[in-house]
């Protein structure tokens, strides 16, 4: 209630402030008189309050430290909620961009043996901004929380990255999420890229999940009522996003389940581990080269298992000055069906894929961190669709990429990164250099572990 009044009072005061300055001297006199009267009134009210002794004086003077033994302060309005909803909804904008160089033409990017999604590549050379993110989030009411993240690609247009509601008050440790959201499989998939420690996602995440696996659908999670963290969850999704495609099974083409557990070891260590299974039924799933041209389409089934582990260290659990993070995910994928190449030739295709990444990031002093990441993928494809020199031909090659990153953060809201990578996705190595800035304007986000 007080908030409501404050909301009206503030603009009124703001409007009044310049007017008082502009008022002529006579008016000033008048106002002084009014203020004096107000003060008298206030003093009277204070005296009354003291007499009734219903609550303690809000400010206790230094000399007078005695406080009534049982102050009934419980009725005082609580105006200091810490949940960032002082403005409803909380709004934040993330701006990012930078500079990239590649020793090879980025248009030639490919990963032999893999039919890639449209976001598996690394973008263009030179200066440029990346997608800006606009997030609105708030508790809708006592039962629901909702969040919407819109991304504004530099070419124009708006993408709805996430738009979901989540329950807050289901009994028994259950949480339901519905709408469009980043899937909870694996570890890093559910985070927005500005949270990452590297400028881009690992080769394995880009190959297996097309950068980020998201979908329209429903997620259910259950948190066990134990002192050790254990959570299981599952999702039913439309199935039109890579590695799915074509919204099979009447628009419920993908489903997944995951289990996560974690805890602390002493004061300084904490960890989180998970295992996930994703089942997709792609229909006419297009794959692309890095110029955006279609390299073929796939019909069949795509099943994947992901294992993930995160280990964090901070002295006494205080990560402000120094901290260390180790993170790894492994992927195993099986695709069976038919592949139609760009020329229209149809053939049976049976693919077995493995991959993963491991990264270590060390913040050695307040604001500065260094990190290293290695990622590799491996394909064994068979069937008539695997033709020499085609998209599914592995050339017997093991694609891999290694990156080094140096990060600097002036505050929680501004961050800069420099990244060197040796990309051996193809037999000819590509040396890459990238600079990035990330600026956060607006509400102070709270991040998951």
């Amino acid at each position, binding site marked *: 209630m007080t908030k409501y009044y404050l909301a009206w009072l503030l603009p009124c005061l703001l409007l009044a402030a310049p007017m008082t300055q502009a008022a002529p001297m006579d008016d000033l006199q008048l106002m002084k008189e009014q203020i004096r009267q107000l003060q008298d009134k206030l003093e009277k009210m204070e005296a009354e309050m003291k007499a009734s002794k219903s609550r303690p004086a809000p*400010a*206790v003077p230094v000399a007078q*430290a*005695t*406080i009534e*033994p049982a*102050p*009934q*302060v*419980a009725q*005082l309005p*609580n*105006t*200091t*909620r*810490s*949940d*960032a909803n*002082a403005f409803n909804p909380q709004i934040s904008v993330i701006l990012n961009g930078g500079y990239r160089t590649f020793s090879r033409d980025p248009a030639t990017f490919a990963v032999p043996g893999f039919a890639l999604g449209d976001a598996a590549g690394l973008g263009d050379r030179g200066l440029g901004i990346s997608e800006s993110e606009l997030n609105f989030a708030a*508790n809708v009411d*006592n039962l629901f*929380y909702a969040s919407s993240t819109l991304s504004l690609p530099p070419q124009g247009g708006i993408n709805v990255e996430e738009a979901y509601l989540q329950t807050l*008050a289901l*009994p028994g*440790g*259950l*949480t339901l999420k519905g709408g469009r959201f980043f899937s909870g499989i694996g570890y890093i998939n559910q985070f927005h890229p500005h949270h990452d420690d590297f400028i881009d996602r690992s080769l394995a995440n880009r190959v297996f999940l097309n950068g980020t696996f998201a979908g329209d659908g429903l997620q259910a*999670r*259950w*948190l*066990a*009522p*134990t*002192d*050790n*963290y*254990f959570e299981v969850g599952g999702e039913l999704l439309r199935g039109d996003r890579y590695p799915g495609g074509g919204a099979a099974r009447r628009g419920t083409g993908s489903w997944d389940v995951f289990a*996560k*557990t*974690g*805890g*602390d070891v002493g004061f300084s260590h*904490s*960890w989180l581990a998970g295992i996930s299974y994703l089942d997709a039924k792609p229909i006419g799933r297009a794959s692309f080269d890095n110029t955006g041209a279609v390299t073929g389409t796939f019909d069949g089934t795509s099943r994947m298992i992901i294992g993930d582990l995160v280990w*964090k260290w*901070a002295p*006494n*659990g*205080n990560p*402000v000055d120094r901290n260390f993070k180790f993170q790894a995910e492994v992927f195993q994928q099986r695709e069976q069906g038919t592949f139609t190449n760009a020329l229209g030739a149809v053939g049976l295709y049976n693919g077995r894929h493995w991959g993963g990444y491991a990264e270590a990031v060390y913040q050695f002093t307040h604001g500065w961190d260094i990190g290293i990441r290695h990622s590799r993928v491996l394909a064994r494809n068979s069937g008539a669709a695997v033709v020499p020199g085609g998209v599914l031909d592995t050339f017997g090659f093991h694609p891999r990429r290694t990156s080094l990153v140096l990060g600097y953060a*002036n*505050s*929680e*809201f501004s961050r800069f990164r420099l990244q060197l990578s040796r990309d051996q996705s193809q037999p000819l190595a590509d040396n890459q250099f990238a600079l990035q800035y990330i600026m956060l304007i607006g509400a*102070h*986000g*709270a*991040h*998951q*572990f």
Partner: protein
Amino acid sequence: MKSYIKLSVTLLALLGAALPSEAAVRVFACEPEWGALVNELGGTDVEVYIATSALQDPHHIQARPSLIARVRNTDLVVATGAQLEIGWLPVLLRQSANPAIQPSQPGYFEAAGFVNMLEVPSSVDRIQGDVHPAGNPHIHTDPRNILLVAGALNQRLKQLDAAHADAYQHRYTDFAGRWQAALQRWQAEASPLQGVKLIAYHKGWAYMLNWLGLNEVATIESVAGVPPGAAHLADLLARQKVDPAMMVIYAAYQDGKASEWLGKKAGIPVVKLPFTVGGTDQASDLFTLYDDTLQLLLRAAGR
């Protein structure tokens, strides 16, 4: 079908076994000072889990899996509020799937709602650093606030656990009496500190400065939440020649390097204060927290 029934029965049985006993009110205290206060007021009727230690910066806690699991099973979350925990508590509350402790429920308690806030900014511009729009959240550095919060917390505990209302009231009356006596003692002890000039590392002491009449002439962090640069430290040193401070203070969880450097250069004592319960060996409970803080300040001031 039969196997499904069997499975659900087993799961339910496991669930029942895993659920902690209903004997005590389970409290999740975000900071050690509130953990200590709940222990004073709740005694054996509460089971307190303290989420952070005195060596951790309460602004920057990670929403660790262990904390999510604890919030899931708790009956009451006691936070400071005023956006101190904004970087982690909202995630814990949302991830915990616990309807009882969502904001606006009786199971959610914010201490800052019951005291008079200081340093409430008239404008929130992050050029001044990570400013808290609701005011300085470090309210517990003034022990008079502890009593105000204790009163509200007592009401809340009685509301949540009506069966033991008398016991809570008894413990509260006892605590309030002891606290009043301690306040008077501290007040007398601290009189030499009136007007003493000091430099603090972070704007974390507004309430203590107000309580003791101390004069904070500068902070080592030029803006809140951003580490100091060399130029600002040089400014502080130059300032020291004109308007000398008597000591440098910093909290146990903060990196003391910049404070030590400044103290050495300026030739004034550097005091590591406990900040909260557990910050020093002496500060083992709420009473000794202020005992030790005063002793350290008095010693540094040479009084």
